[in-house]
């Protein structure tokens, strides 16, 4: 049985008399222990979707089942109880600014009526887990962004949730801090078996830790599946844009000339899987066809903990030759993808 099941979910808002459809007929199934990424450009409806999973937003149509329970059938009181099992962390951390770290972590426990001493004990354990014991009595304003998010994670874990929703949890953080927060989330997922749902606009986040990904574009779910599969074979336009956008994020800053080449030339994006790394495929291809290819970009990327080679090749002119080269590479077991536009 899946942890979270979303069926035919739609959500529309009424903005000054104009109906805005934020989400259209979304179907998802998230299994226990998954790290499920939901990615899309800003305005794609990601944040609305994640808020439908704990009913902070009520869907206009469709169902959300958490642990088999249809959230729309719950009373207000039952829903509040259910929410204690679905923790959430946010882009801007949303800590209580007037309370210190330990009281922030105690907060969800005190909400459900636990004794202060017990809550404090549990909070100290959690602080240890997120490696911030020495900050127990500090106030959020004295912490860095990464530390605040760690406190928020500890607070989220306090009520022993089965599911953790992360709404752009790393978007306000620098790359190093992002990496450490992602490592912490992965650790939590492995240690406690908590299902994690991650909303992000950064493909790097999805690659780093997600097992599954759903791509959201203008409120429509355009692609869904295992991260590796989508990284190797993006089917939808939106998925390609995101994967190529991922390239530009860390590589092509300022090098527009190179970027332009991708637009002008016939280009291929190649993904090397493990077995294709044994043979010098590109070198052999050049020898075989006797023509030069232009390596516009080469990189290795961490996809779910496995290093994947990624390369963008500018092909020589001539349609027939290009087709032959493509056929050759497919034959050698490479994952290829034509780059028709740069975004």
């Amino acid at each position: 049985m899946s942890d979270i099941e979303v069926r035919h979910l739609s959500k529309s808002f009424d903005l000054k008399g104009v109906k805005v459809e934020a989400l259209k007929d979304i179907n998802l199934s998230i299994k226990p222990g998954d790290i499920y990424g939901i990615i899309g450009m800003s305005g794609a409806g990601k944040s609305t979707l994640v808020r439908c999973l704990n009913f902070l937003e009520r869907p206009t149509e469709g169902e959300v089942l958490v642990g088999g329970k249809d959230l729309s059938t719950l009373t207000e009181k039952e829903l509040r109880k259910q929410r204690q099992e679905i923790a959430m962390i946010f882009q801007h951390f949303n800590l209580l600014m007037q309370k210190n770290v330990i009281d922030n972590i105690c907060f969800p426990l005190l909400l459900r009526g636990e004794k202060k001493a017990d809550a404090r004990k549990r909070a100290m354990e959690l602080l240890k887990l997120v490696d911030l014991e020495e900050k127990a009595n500090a106030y959020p304003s004295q912490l860095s962004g990464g530390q605040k998010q760690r406190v928020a994670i500890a607070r989220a874990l306090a009520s022993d949730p089965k599911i953790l929703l992360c709404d752009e949890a790393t978007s306000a953080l620098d790359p190093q801090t992002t990496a450490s927060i992602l490592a912490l989330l992965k650790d939590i997922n492995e240690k406690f078996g908590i299902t994690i749902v991650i909303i992000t606009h950064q493909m790097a986040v999805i690659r780093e830790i997600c097992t599954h990904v759903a791509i959201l574009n203008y409120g429509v779910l355009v692609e869904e599946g295992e991260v590796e599969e989508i990284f190797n074979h993006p089917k939808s336009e939106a998925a390609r844009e995101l994967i190529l956008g991922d390239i530009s994020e860390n590589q092509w800053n300022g090098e527009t000339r190179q970027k332009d080449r991708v637009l002008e030339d016939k280009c291929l994006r190649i993904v090397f899987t493990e077995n294709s790394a044994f043979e010098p495929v590109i070198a052999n291809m050049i020898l075989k066809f006797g023509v030069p290819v232009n390596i516009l970009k080469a990189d290795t990327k961490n996809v779910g903990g496995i290093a994947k080679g990624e390369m963008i090749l500018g092909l020589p002119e001539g349609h027939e030759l290009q087709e032959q080269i493509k056929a050759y590479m497919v034959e050698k077991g490479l994952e290829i993808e034509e780059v028709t536009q740069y975004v």
Partner: protein
Amino acid sequence: MFSQEVMNMLIKGIGETLYMTLGATIFGYVLGLPMGIIMVTTSKDGIRPNAGVYKVLDVIVNIGRSIPFLILLILLMPLTKAIVGKSYGSTATIVPLVISAAPFIARMVESSLNEVDSGVIEAAKSMGASTMQIITKVMLVEARTSLIVGVTITLGTVLGYSAMAGTIGGGGLGDIAIRYGYYRYQADIMIVTVVLLVVLVQLFQTIGMKLSVRLDKRK
């Protein structure tokens, strides 16, 4: 400088002024605080939106705030008499002061609570907090600095109004200033009462600000 008699009168005046100001502020909050909280919770973006309730309170507050205090003082005389038993003196003045301060306080509380980061409220909701818990454990706690500043401003305003009530026999420093300074042309007594009023306002302001800064953990 003054006779013992005048000194005693001034001391009594200070006592009455403090009594009216603090009394009216406390009862004003008893009425105004819940009103402000209900307005924030029932507003369009509140945690329990209710357009009807909000509108009613909004109108009541606006009416209350637009009636000049002196008029209210006279209008409320029957009510004051019913509650206190007489319509003059400092205890009687507390009634119109409360009625006049409550809407002002409600607005003040509303604006303080609206400053609370909606993200923090959302976080509390996601943890399964009830409306009451969000109000008492999130909004009032997070807004406490601003609420204290509100109390400080209210004290100053109420103190000014209490002096105004002196014109119709309300007691306190305002009463002394009118009776001795204005009707009997004893300018020295008038000046002293005004200085005392200024000192009181200054005192409230300083204490309030110190307290709010000390309790603010945001910096």
